[in-house]
């Protein structure tokens, strides 16, 4: 079963184009420099449309998560994490933590993470996170 895929809208297309290229793109208010997520063509703090897209570092820490013991059919059969990560630039995003055992012992809050991209269709790659190397 193919994994459930997002359908980009005009306001989010740049984000999904970015992940397909292997880049995690955020937006920020050009006046205040404050970054935000999910994508929209204005700053949610001030309402200003004077915003820009920029490439994030891909560094994050583990903010909170669950380990789903009853996966959705398109997610396989083994328990897996559903996590929220704190990006270095400020915003948080939902994701999966990969590249380590899906256990409370291996998934420790505040552990350093780095983004990886998983291609799930011709046009969509999902930003996932793995324990930071080095």
């Amino acid at each position, binding site marked *: 079963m193919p*994994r*459930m*895929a*997002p*359908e*980009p*809208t005009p306001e*989010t297309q740049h984000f*999904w184009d970015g992940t397909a290229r292997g880049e995690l793109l955020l937006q920020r208010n050009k006046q205040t420099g404050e970054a935000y*997520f*999910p994508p929209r063509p204005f700053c949610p703090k001030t309402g200003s449309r004077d915003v820009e897209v920029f490439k994030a570092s891909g560094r994050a820490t583990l*903010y*909170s*998560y*669950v*380990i*789903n*013991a*009853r*996966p*959705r059919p*398109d*997610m396989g059969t083994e*328990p*897996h994490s*559903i*996590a*929220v990560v704190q990006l270095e630039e400020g915003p*948080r*995003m*939902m*994701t*999966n933590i990969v590249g380590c055992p899906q256990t*409370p012992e291996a998934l420790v*809050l505040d552990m350093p993470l780095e983004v990886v991209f998983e291609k*799930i269709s011709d046009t969509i790659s*999902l930003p996932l996170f793995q324990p930071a190397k080095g």
Partner: protein
Amino acid sequence: MKQNSVAVVGAAETTKMGKIPDVSVIGLHADAALNAMKDAGLNPSDIDGVACAGISPVELAHYLGITPTYADGTSVGGCSFMLHVRHAAAAINEGLCKTVLITHGESGRSRVGAGGFGRSPSSLMGQFEMPYGVTSPPTMFTIPVLRYMKTYGVTEQDLAMVAVVQREWAALNPRSSFKDPISVDDVLNSPMIAWPFRMLMCCLVTDGGGALILTSADRAKDFPTKPVYVLGTGESVETPLVSQMEDFTTSKAFRVSGKKAFDEAGIKHSDVDHLMIYDAFAHLPLYGLEDLGFCKPGEAKDFINGRNTAIGGKLPLNTNGGGLSYMHSGMYGMYALQESVRQLRGVAPAQVKDAKISVSHGVGGMFAASGTIIFGNEKV
């Protein structure tokens, strides 16, 4: 809103509760509505305002033969009915209508005439949460809790105790789905749903419904039951994406809604005799106690472990057994309101002696929305 200007004069749940495979969703709305009208001694022609969530108020009005001058289809999840009460009070005070019927019905378990739980893949949830494997509330509502637990040193045992205490209340309620006592070990040995949540930390999935009828306080004395007055009301919404909550250790919607209701009612926390906090999962009463101001941040676990919310405690909480043990059809807020009304009428199965003020606090979505109603049974 003006204190004491509006009262609940009709309140009832569906005739049956739990597993009702022979009634559709709209049938549950109607069954509850007819029971509430009987409770108030009213007919459909006496109702001139309608509100509901899950189905459209157009469907409700037509099905029951009501010609309203006020219709409210606010649908923000399980606390929608708290918002309906608040909006109805404002509408009655403004003269938009005189008598409002609020209904809930949901075939959560049997799925008779029920829609699906789904989001468009182009919605924000569809793009930025669904691809990571979230299914339904057990994998979304639960996501903030590990951060809350780390911040305040809350343990799995603390979460389990919420379910244990509520089961004690449920044992006193003949209509509860589950009445047998459970221990902390029973909760921690129940099947894993989504770490750190076990099955007994998650709400039931049942069929049922409920309805309320509100009118102006000056008319309330003409009805057969003891009036339950609306003292204060609050509502707020935060985000459709649980991942984007401002703070995982507290709900902004809870805080804003609760403060508004307490300010309107002009009461102190020590004035509250009875409390309902929507408990879709075991962590919600902890967040609710803190965000409503009954406990300081991080202290709700000790408050519950100290049996303050249990039978004989100073703040009886979720006295019907709650969503964890009484029933949970999907949008539970109506049942919290029903229990507040029963307590203030003095007819609850687990009656709190001399209860005069009850707070009913609801959540919608995954910490997405909130509504708070403060009821009293004496004109102040």
